[in-house]
């Protein structure tokens, strides 16, 4: 057993479990998926993230077999699955509404798929008990779906879709119906179950926090296109476009024009009367190219006095404060009207904070804090 980081997408020899090859899906004149190619590897927990209508659910339904591909092919373990009907695919799906059969008990719901496979009685019973144990539902086996709570229903749906030990499990907004606290607990439960069963999970969600928490890789989608496919930290730290930066988390976008200062460092002129900003970038920019500097609020330091030796310093006054308990987000208005968000941990009691509404403050950040984006 090697202890290296799980990253089959970086191994050129790894065989993907699923590959979308130039897949296009049209509904009439509407293009839901636009010439999309994507590889998903075995044992991955892959998240499709995007606003509603971006095509993420269509991707999932094509994998399950409920939608046909207009152009291109989808391969599962090297086989084109276009002609395989949903009931013959080694793929199971957990539905957003859970779709539990209301006339069957929890036990029978979980056994449903196994019965279709004509599994011998003893094996079937053992498998159902195993699933009940995995999802901590032993006590509720004889209940009907309407006799259990929302969180328990969610676990029944998961147990039912895992019972047949599919190669691939699809989860359509699996936690959407749960309240926040339960959702967080369940996220970790999902990760544990994914790890212990070794099943490949593909999850569809519009909740970026959920995607970041559970997934090994996240695909950000918009209007049928993949905007970026990367690990959660790379998506957050090095988004490849303003769209991704803006969709994931909170961000300040400053538009400006680049001047090369050194190899890999640039000066960004962004407003009359303001000093140029310093930023490093791995991608190259030419002189006087339009660029967007994306900086996360938590990477901006807010101080009452002018900091020394900072790469970038701007002055403004506190326009608004969003108090979140552990954190506060300060909306700082610069002299030219630009609003910059800065976030700081509330390490001291709020009454001892050294600045408040309307106070002048200094914002500073390093040259490596932000990301320079061309579009």
């Amino acid at each position, binding site marked *: 057993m090697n202890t290296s980081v799980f990253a089959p997408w970086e191994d050129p020899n790894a065989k993907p479990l699923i590959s979308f090859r130039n897949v296009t899906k049209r509904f009439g004149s509407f293009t839901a998926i636009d010439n999309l190619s994507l590889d998903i590897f075995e044992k991955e927990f892959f998240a499709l993230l995007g606003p509603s209508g971006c095509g993420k659910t269509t991707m999932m339904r094509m994998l399950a077999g409920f939608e046909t591909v207009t152009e291109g092919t989808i391969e599962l373990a090297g086989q084109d699955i276009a002609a395989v009907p*949903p*009931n013959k695919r080694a*793929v199971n799906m957990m*539905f957003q509404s859970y*779709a539990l*059969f209301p006339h069957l008990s929890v036990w029978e719901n979980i056994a449903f*798929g196994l019965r279709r496979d004509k599994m011998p009685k003893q094996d079937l019973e053992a498998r159902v008990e195993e699933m009940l144990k995995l999802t901590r539902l032993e006590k509720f086996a004889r209940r009907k779906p*309407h*006799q259990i709570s929302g969180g328990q229903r969610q676990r029944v749906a998961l147990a039912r879709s895992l019972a047949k030990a599919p190669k691939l499990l699809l989860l359509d907004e699996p936690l959407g119906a749960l309240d926040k606290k339960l959702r967080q607990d369940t996220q970790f439960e999902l990760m544990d179950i994914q790890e212990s069963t070794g099943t490949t999970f593909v999850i569809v969600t519009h909740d970026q926090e959920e995607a970041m928490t559970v997934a090994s890789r996240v695909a950000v989608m918009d209007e049928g296109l993949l905007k970026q496919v990367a690990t959660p930290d790379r998506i957050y730290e090095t988004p490849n476009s303003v769209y991704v930066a803006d969709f994931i988390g909170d961000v300040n976008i400053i538009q400006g024009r680049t001047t090369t200062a050194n190899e890999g460092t640039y000066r960004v002129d962004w407003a009359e009367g303001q000093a140029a900003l310093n930023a490093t970038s791995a991608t190259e920019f030419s002189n006087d190219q339009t660029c967007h500097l994306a900086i996360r609020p938590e990477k901006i330091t807010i101080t009452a006095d002018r900091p020394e030796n900072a790469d970038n310093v701007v002055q403004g006054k506190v326009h608004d404060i969003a108090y979140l308990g552990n954190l506060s987000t300060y909306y700082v208005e610069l002299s030219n009207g630009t609003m910059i968000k800065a976030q700081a941990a509330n390490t001291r009691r709020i009454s001892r904070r050294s600045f408040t509404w309307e106070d002048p403050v200094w914002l500073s950040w390093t040259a490596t804090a932000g990301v320079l984006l061309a579009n």
Partner: protein
Amino acid sequence: MNKLSWFNVVSLTLGFAFLYIPMIILIIFSFNESKLVTVWAGFSTKWYGELMQNEAFLNAAWVTVKVAVFSSTIATVLGTMAAYVLVRGGRFLGRTLFSGMIYAPLVMPEVITGLSLLLLFIGIGLDRGVLTIVLAHTTFSMCYVSVVVSSRLVTFDRSLEEAALDLGCSAAEAFRLVTLPIIAPAVISGWLLAFTLSLDDLVIASFTSGPSATTLPIKIFSAVRLGVSPEINALSTLMIAVVTVGVITASLVSKRATLRQKQDEQAAAREA
């Protein structure tokens, strides 16, 4: 609870009086000693006894039940199939036309339905009897079944069927194991509706019945033309009793089911 105002009391009384006085009179006179329908001569159950001796009525009652059971069963099968295709079939050529056509018999005058069936049976040389009445009743009651079942299917969560397919069912298995058990209440009420319609029907049955088979409504109608007898009152009272018991049982059963579901859901919410 609000106290009823005098206006509400009057409207309630008038409404119910309008609905039920004729039936109450009929029931009262079924216990009349006298042979004269409108003259009260003391309480008696003798007409019920005589009714039980009347072969013709008993035969007609038996034919009616047979026709109702067969026609409502066939109508339920056909009506459910039609509803399923119309709701689930997606867009196919002539879908709108078909769904319009399935509802047309609801508004078609019964005389016309009856007459056209009669012409058909004569045309194909089918002797009129139990079979023709069954066919005729199936024809007009299947559209009622299809209306009831399709209104249930419209609200049916499609992902339940998809889940069944996903778990390895063929389309037919998904229907049998998932869809049918869930829509069963609608299918059963469709059957009951078809059954009642068949029991009630006079017009279409009189077109399609023959000398060998007469239904109870036809028998009563022809008997009344010779004068209302207390025996008819007794028979009608029995029919009212049967229908009342049926309706009350059905509503009690459904009320208990709703109540239990509510309790279960509350219990689940408490434990969560």
